[in-house]
């Protein structure tokens, strides 16, 4: 269709798509005028404080709340059983897309038994948080401690306590992939490299903790929840179902969200309990997790041990992978997204950049008496990429092939798509070869190698890391959540409206957490319509105001939400041109919209501002013939039709220095070349990559939830749990290779997780490159100075 090509938002001159524009919310934030959940107060608001289990596994013999209810200011104390009585039933965190998966029923708070340190057991509502915490100390709980399962390696052994006896054992899920021919490939291989890898459990540590303010209108029966969430509609559905309310009587508002990274896409029992209390009392209830309870109640991630081997020919051709994944989940599978995605994704993506055809993989997910694990930025990818890329480097070293060269020889060719990996996932529109070439040039690879050799001679041990990656983004409805039965919408939508003044309101189901979603949605809308950015306002994060959508997770906002905006804006553009055609007695196809003004396409003469269409379309309808009934509001949806995911790809480079006396690692420089498809706002895309990298580097080098044998978290504070700070982090150069996705017109693929997904792999490779002459290597993350000294045989 002619107008389609001409209205392509990226083909137009001076398009907003592909341009760096500042974020709309940034000015408020630098003035200290951001509005986060804790900044809202309501009349007669109460504060919730939770009593949490001090034991990894214990029976609740009795709870006595009488004393706690006594102090002035305390409005209510509720036990897990009392909250459960207000629920329609327990959750079970399984999805039918994971055959054989099992999980125990779970209520918002522990009923009769607690299964991890930090599980909510009772809550106190009081006038102030301090009073609630004071009263919480007077809730008397008699506990009988039970044996706990805290080690994934022994979770399935006969002597280990079974957390949920009704499940029979601690097995959550097992999955195997086998292409066949794997044993033969290994038997015939010139070289087999193998190792065992450990990935420590860590957690999200968003600077703003989980936060919620619930208020229930007893007159209308409407529950309004202001909460720091990435997925308002999912929260609406799950909370409504759990509390026995109709979906449409629950409104979720996500105001400014102070960081999320996946930890705020989940359902947390304490938040449901706070809502139950608000309903019970008819008073607003605020719950702000404090940092110490965040460490034991936010989802955890990454706890995996992977045994892996790779078969290679003398010429460096990768022939087969064989991996065995043991994943330590928490005491329950997280509802509704489950706790098995990480292991599943490791199976999907390990060795994903390469052409080998033989692949065998097994994942075993076991329950432990620890906080539930679930999706956290770049689910599974840091692990799968670290394993695969380490083995590729090991093969390169053994065969005397340069790490870049061995990757060149094995990556899928840029002209070889669509294709399917040996693990069975479909890939389209990728660009490994171009990305490798761009990285080599940008990091000045040959010179860096020369510098490394020069310094090596002087006793300075630097390492260069290379790591290719693929990253699954934008999950489609044919895949896991959709067919698996999760109440999570995998389409997304945009409703776009022309206001009387010519202004545009653009309401989207995807959400903003600071990455710039609102800004890029505005850019797409403005570019598609042909209006100035200033005339577009984007609305997100309010289920009463936006069309139904999945929210932001899995790097889906640009790819899915962005395409919905494009299509909705095009529909509005077509209507505006059609009304203008009637008013101007012109063919709509002879008209265009530029800078908010309808122009004659051929002469570029200005004919009519959009404000005139708005005025007539809303007020002076008599100027239009009766056959024209303006709508001026259009909704479009977009979903993936046949793909499980959109995949992105790229390559990281890292330059590090290892002090072989102390084991300390200095990160000198980091490079990322990535292909997120069409780049909508280059600066925002760069910053997603940079922030993602540092989150990955945190996991690779510092972050670790350390548990003792009794299931106690021993470093649950920010003084003890290390996160990356400015001084330790490197500068990060980012290059984009753009291969637009063929599944949408916009062609965006998603950028939010590409940094996190491969940064751990590249830094581990760089450290091992530095250690290579010593015959030492590290394969456990976080890579601590101690682990390096152990590898070097110094301690």
């Amino acid at each position, binding site marked *: 269709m002619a107008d389609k090509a001409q209205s392509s938002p990226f083909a137009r001159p001076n398009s907003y798509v592909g341009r760096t524009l*500042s*974020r709309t*919310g*940034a*000015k*408020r*934030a*630098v*003035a*200290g*005028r*951001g*509005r*986060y959940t*804790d*900044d809202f107060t309501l009349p007669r608001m109460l504060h919730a404080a939770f009593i949490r289990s001090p034991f990894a596994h214990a029976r609740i013999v009795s709870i006595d709340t009488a004393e706690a209810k006594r102090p002035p200011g305390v409005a209510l104390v509720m036990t897990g059983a009392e909250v459960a009585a207000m629920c329609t039933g327990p959750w079970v965190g399984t999805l039918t897309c994971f055959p054989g998966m099992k999980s125990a029923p779970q209520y918002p708070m522990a009923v009769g038994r607690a299964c991890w340190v930090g599980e909510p057991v009772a809550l106190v509502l009081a006038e102030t948080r*301090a009073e609630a915490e004071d009263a919480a100390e007077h809730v008397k709980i008699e506990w009988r401690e039970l044996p706990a399962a805290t080690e994934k390696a022994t979770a399935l052994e006969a002597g280990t306590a079974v957390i949920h006896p009704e499940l029979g054992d601690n097995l959550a899920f097992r999955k195997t992939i086998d292409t066949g021919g794997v044993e033969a490939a290994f038997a015939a291989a010139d070289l087999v490299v193998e190792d065992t890898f450990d990935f420590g459990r860590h957690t*999200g*540590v*968003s*600077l*703003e*903790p989980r936060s919620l303010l619930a208020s229930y209108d007893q007159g209308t029966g409407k529950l309004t929840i202001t909460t720091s969430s990435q997925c308002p509609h999912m929260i609406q559905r799950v909370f409504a179902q759990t509390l026995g309310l109709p979906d449409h009587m629950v409104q979720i508002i996500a105001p*400014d*969200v*102070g*960081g*999320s*990274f996946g930890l705020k896409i989940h359902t947390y029992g304490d938040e449901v309990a706070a809502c139950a209390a608000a309903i019970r009392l008819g008073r607003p209830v605020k719950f*702000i997790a*404090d*940092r110490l309870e965040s460490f034991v109640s936010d989802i955890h991630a990454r706890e995996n041990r992977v045994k892996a081997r790779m078969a290679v020919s003398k010429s460096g051709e990768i022939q087969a992978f064989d991996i065995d994944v043991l994943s330590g989940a928490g005491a329950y599978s997280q509802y509704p997204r489950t706790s098995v995605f990480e292991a599943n994704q490791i199976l999907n993506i390990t060795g994903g950049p390469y052409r080998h055809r033989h692949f065998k993989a097994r994942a075993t997910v076991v329950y432990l008496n620890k906080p539930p694990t679930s999706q956290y930025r770049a689910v599974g990818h840091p692990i799968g990429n670290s394993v695969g890329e380490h083995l590729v480097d090991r093969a390169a070293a053994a065969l005397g092939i340069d790490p870049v060269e061995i990757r060149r020889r094995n990556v899928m060719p840029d002209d070889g798509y669509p294709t399917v990996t040996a693990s069975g996932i479909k890939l389209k529109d990728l660009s490994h070869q171009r990305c490798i070439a761009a990285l080599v040039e940008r990091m000045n690879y040959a010179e860096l190698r020369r510098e490394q050799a020069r310094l090596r001679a002087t006793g300075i041990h630097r390492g260069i890391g290379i790591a290719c990656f693929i990253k699954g983004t934008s999950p489609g409805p044919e895949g896991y959540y959709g067919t698996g039965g999760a109440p999570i919408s995998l389409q997304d939508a945009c409703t776009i409206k022309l206001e009387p003044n010519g202004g545009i309101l653009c309401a989207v189901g995807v959400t903003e*957490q*600071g*990455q*710039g979603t609102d800004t890029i949605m505005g850019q797409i809308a403005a570019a598609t319509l042909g209006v100035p950015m200033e005339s577009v306002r984007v609305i997100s994060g309010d289920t009463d105001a936006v069309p139904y959508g999945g929210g932001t997770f899995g790097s889906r906002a640009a790819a899915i939400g962005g395409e919905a905006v494009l299509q909705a804006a095009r529909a509005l553009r077509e209507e505006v041109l059609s009304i203008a055609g009637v008013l101007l007695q012109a063919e709509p196809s002879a008209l265009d919209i530029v800078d908010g003004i309808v122009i004659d396409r051929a002469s570029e003469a200005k004919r009519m501002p959009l404000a005139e269409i708005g005025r007539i379309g809303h007020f002076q309808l008599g100027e239009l013939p009766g056959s024209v009934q303006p709508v001026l509001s259009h909704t479009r949806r977009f979903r993936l039709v046949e793909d499980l995911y959109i995949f992105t790809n790229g390559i990281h480079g890292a330059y590090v220095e290892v002090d072989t006396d102390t084991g300390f690692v200095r990160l000198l420089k980091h490079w990322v070349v990535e292909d997120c498809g069409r780049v909508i706002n280059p*600066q*925002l895309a760069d*910053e997603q990559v*940079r*922030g*993602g*990298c*540092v*989150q990955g580097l945190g996991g690779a080098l510092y972050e670790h939830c350390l548990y003792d044998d009794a299931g106690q978290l021993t470093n649950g*504070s*920010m*003084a003890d749990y290390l*996160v*990356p*700070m*400015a*001084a330790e*982090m490197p*500068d*990060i150069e980012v290059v984009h290779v753009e291969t637009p996705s063929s599944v949408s017109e916009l062609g965006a693929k998603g950028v939010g997780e590409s*940094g996190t997904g491969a940064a751990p792999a590249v830094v581990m490779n760089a450290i091992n490159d530095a250690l290579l002459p010593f015959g030492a290597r590290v394969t456990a993350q976080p890579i601590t100075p101690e682990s390096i000294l152990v590898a070097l045989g110094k301690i």
Partner: protein
Amino acid sequence: MTDAETMEIALTVNGERVSRTVLVRRHLVDFLRIDLGLTGSHLGCEHGVCGACSVRLDGVVVRGCLLLAVQADGCDVVTIEGLDQSGEVADLQQTFVARNALQCGFCTPGMLMTAAELLADPQPKTREEIRTFLSGNYCRCTGYHAIVDAVATTLDERVKRGGGHG
């Protein structure tokens, strides 16, 4: 010390004289947020590590979560709202926006408060020195690179201009 649970305090906050009766156990940042409605200072950890609650007390940047409101009696407190109104870091704020040196914005008030201290007496600094100076402020979103860029750009301009304030 008396056993009283409350105490009268009088202080200056962002140039305004303020007096209140406060619980003696109330933290300075809770006082600012709850009693005065100055919600720009944020609570990230409440144990002095993350820096989100950084405010200026008698000219020095402190953790608002490690001080009690009563300790600020008679003091001069500046929060991000005051820093914004005074225009002291207008150049830095502008550069933060232009360089996208913030994402979720939760750390930003504390980050600006700390950076303001570095910029007050503009001396040339390396990127490493800037990184070290900012190392008491946790940011989960940006990876710090853009923040270092923004502070370095602002510092360079101030050094060139030979002046302190923006």
